[in-house]
């Protein structure tokens, strides 16, 4: 490989990386936007934590851990998909399948997407959290 090519490839990669930052090219991986924690959260805003609970066919309430291993999706991925989930809650079926496969003998009856809300003030946690239900889906 000649020096000219090496120089060209190096500068091109840098150019792509810088352009990705300017255009927020999140999916230009591996040279995409370096946007982890880049978004300036409102210092007086509300922090939302999404989580998932379910009831089993025997009436027991369980929390579905949102990791790829436990549920097939992570919390962030579930939050990214929340809009689609509102339109089509049956997207939760895949998660139920993974969770049930990890818990042989236990079947899920309903699944509930929940959120905890934390109030911030001046960039710090200011009050005890509140809970809300986003949606409930009956597992067929």
């Amino acid at each position, binding site marked *: 490989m000649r*020096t000219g090519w*090496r120089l060209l490839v190096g500068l091109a990669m*840098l150019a792509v990386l810088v352009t990705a*930052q300017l255009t927020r090219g999140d999916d230009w991986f591996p040279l995409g936007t370096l946007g*982890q*924690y880049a978004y300036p959260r409102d*210092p007086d805003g509300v*922090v939302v934590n999404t989580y998932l609970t379910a009831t089993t066919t025997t009436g027991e309430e369980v929390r579905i851990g949102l990791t*790829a291993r436990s549920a097939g999706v992570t919390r962030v*991925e579930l939050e990214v998909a929340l809009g689609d989930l509102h339109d089509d809650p049956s997207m939760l079926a895949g998660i139920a399948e993974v969770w049930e496969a990890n818990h042989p003998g236990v079947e899920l009856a309903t699944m509930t997407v929940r959120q905890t809300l934390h109030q911030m003030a001046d960039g710090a946690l200011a009050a005890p959290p509140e809970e809300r239900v986003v949606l409930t889906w009956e597992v067929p």
Partner: protein
Amino acid sequence: MSRVRASTAAFVRWWVPALPRARVAWVRAAIAVMAVLDVRYFLSSTDDRAATPEFFDPVLLARWLHLPPVTATIATALLVGVHVGAVGVLVGGFRRVPALVQHAAGALLAVAYVLWVVWGMSYGYVAHDHMAITVGVVLLTTAGTARYGDGEGADAAAGWPLRMIQVLTVMTYTGSVLAKYVVSGGSLLRWATSGTLAWAFIRRPNDLNQVLVTNALVMRAAQWGALALELSAPLAFVLRGRWRALLVVGFLGFHLTTFLLLGIHFLPTVVCWSAFVPFERVPEWVRARLAGAGRLVGSTA
């Protein structure tokens, strides 16, 4: 005219520098070990995606390669590829092993690991600690044969991939400041005075960060400190010797802190700092120590 020519030559020499060939072998080994740890423990999620293809959200590279949602068979094949490739890279660094082993293993590791990572990033969340390692594992295959014991002999074929890993490692931090600037609407002040750190602590609560999260002054100071540190990363190209070592240790300390506070280890980037470390001196250092110990033993005998 000659000044322009000299500047151009210096520019090219910086981007395509002669760096020790032995360091390529050491950095390859570090990345190979990291790749195995990554697919086993950190980005192990690729293996768990087979049952949720409806969440497949391919990144650009995955779309270019026409990758389908990952299946259990593909994930297993890639897992095997990363393990076999990594072992070959580690063993291939020794002089007695035929060069073919490190070349074949390096290529296998690059293909298997890059595909694993690209699939891992194609389910909605793209992590930004995998930039330097993902590009580096590919570029290191262009360096040719490199052995741990090659000494300080340097050339551009070895230097270029190392320089690119160095640049991308530094850009992981400095580029993130640019991202913050852009996402914050052209104001770093807005980011530094935002609630981002408290938001992060609330999203990933632990005993330590819950002590700090209610203190607005600490939160703000920490955000300014993070910005200053990220902007200081290019000093790695300016500082030499112990000062550079101190800077690298400073960044490792930063990652230890974020690990304790947020559970974020950033190890794929941490490993890439190895491109700045003069590993090529290790064999000579070990030999000198052993010889010294031998002399000591000899003198007491």
